């Protein structure tokens, strides 16, 4: 067995050894969510030498992510998280095969995305994604490591492992937004997802290597303000293990998310010929003064009528002058179809002109 000096401190652990290291090297792990939980999971799994590490996230780095998403830099604000993360993680361990997926998980892409991995990490921050991950893992027979938090409390468990209980065996149905705070609105102390995420990384290592006791059949609750823990033993319920098909939508009304898109990424998407619909929601005069080459004009003042007959199937990118109206338009679209993949371009036309000049701009009149 090839012993890599890089991992010497792990392989010299009597209970770990080169055998467990080899299992890590052969493992394919998918981390869904590259935020507060995903960052420590990714950092430690990459550092420890997981061979293939997929990372899926549709968001870009925001300044108010940095207090807890300590992998990113101020200079990466506005960049897609998976790109930023892959860049950082490669510098930490260039021997890990990193597979970044810049997307929001949805019922159309989930099974295809998950099928190539051995272990899935649920590092998301909303119920929609959590129930979708659960159902997809049950259908595909993949174990997944669950982590979630509320203020100073955390929950960790390993679900769907060796016929063990699933997430639905604890919480059968998704709560509505009126019941439980969801979305990206609750407060989080920076280090709390750091603690929960490191626990998740360790559970992934246990599953992959067989070292230790994975948290299967148990929900671990951590109260980090008081440093107490509580464990609830779980029972597998057959009706939750026999899911055969995903639901068409997992959206809990009112809690869909608009992803932010940087002008660089938009430019890249156009150059790459990515299949999406670009909606320019500015008014007639603004549009005529200069618009992107492939933008469809759907002014916000008449948005409902303008979009009534649109076939909302592919991802939609909304675009305006400064990035405010495009947010509103994006939310209007989500109200129509709550599992739509929607992006709003940060800074809009002004940002585009500042960073990319007249590239791909039609009818731009000089500022006089």
């Amino acid at each position, binding site marked *: 067995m090839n012993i890599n000096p890089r991992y010497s401190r792990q392989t010299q652990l009597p209970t770990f050894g080169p055998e467990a290291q080899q299992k890590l090297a052969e493992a394919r792990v998918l981390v869904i969510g590259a935020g507060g939980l995903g960052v420590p999971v990714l950092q430690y799994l990459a550092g420890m030498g997981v061979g293939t590490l997929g990372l899926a996230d549709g968001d870009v780095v925001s300044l108010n992510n940095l207090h807890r998403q300590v992998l990113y830099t101020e200079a990466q604000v506005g960049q897609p998280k998976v790109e930023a993360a892959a860049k950082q993680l490669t510098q930490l361990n260039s021997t890990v095969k990193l597979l970044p997926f810049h997307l929001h998980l949805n019922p159309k892409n989930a099974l295809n995305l998950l099928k190539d991995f051995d272990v899935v990490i649920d590092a998301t*921050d*909303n119920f929609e994604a959590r129930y979708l991950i659960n159902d997809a893992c049950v259908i595909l027979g993949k174990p997944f490591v669950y982590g*979630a938090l509320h203020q100073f409390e955390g929950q960790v468990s390993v679900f769907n492992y060796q016929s063990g209980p699933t997430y639905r065996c604890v919480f059968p149905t998704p709560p509505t937004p009126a019941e439980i705070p969801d979305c990206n609105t609750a407060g989080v102390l920076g280090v709390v997802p750091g603690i929960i995420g490191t626990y998740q990384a360790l559970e992934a290592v246990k599953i992959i290597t067989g070292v230790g006791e994975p948290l299967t059949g148990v929900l671990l609750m951590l109260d980090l303000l008081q440093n107490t823990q509580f464990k609830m*033993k779980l029972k597998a319920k057959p009706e939750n293990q026999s899911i055969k098909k995903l639901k068409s939508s997992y959206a809990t009304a009112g809690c869909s998310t608009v992803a932010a898109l940087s002008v660089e990424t938009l430019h890249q998407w156009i150059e790459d010929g990515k299949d999406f619909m670009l909606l320019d929601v500015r008014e007639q005069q603004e549009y005529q003064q200069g618009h992107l080459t492939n933008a469809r004009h759907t002014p916000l003042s008449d948005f409902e009528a303008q979009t009534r007959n649109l076939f909302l199937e592919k991802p939609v990118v909304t675009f305006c002058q400064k990035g405010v109206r495009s947010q509103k338009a994006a939310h209007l679209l989500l109200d129509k179809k709550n599992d739509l993949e929607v992006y709003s371009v940060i800074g809009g036309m002004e940002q585009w002109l500042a960073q990319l000049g007249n590239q791909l701009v039609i009818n731009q009149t000089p500022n006089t």
Partner: protein
Amino acid sequence: MEILLFGITREIVGQNQLTVPTQDRPETVGKLKEWLAQQYPALQKLSSLAVAVDSEYADDAQPLPSGAEVALIPPVSGG
């Protein structure tokens, strides 16, 4: 009977723990949920609320012995 609270149930009740008076002691988990709904109507709207009896997940039909340690565990979504 003492009930440990977690997540949103702490905020609804306003403390980390709850005592069910002896004379009210419910016989099953289902009856406990009814009692809780009466005392704290906001708990009623929690469609998925796990109940642990002596550290094990318990269905509504499960009896509650007198010395049982009960915990209310709602789902949480943050990350």
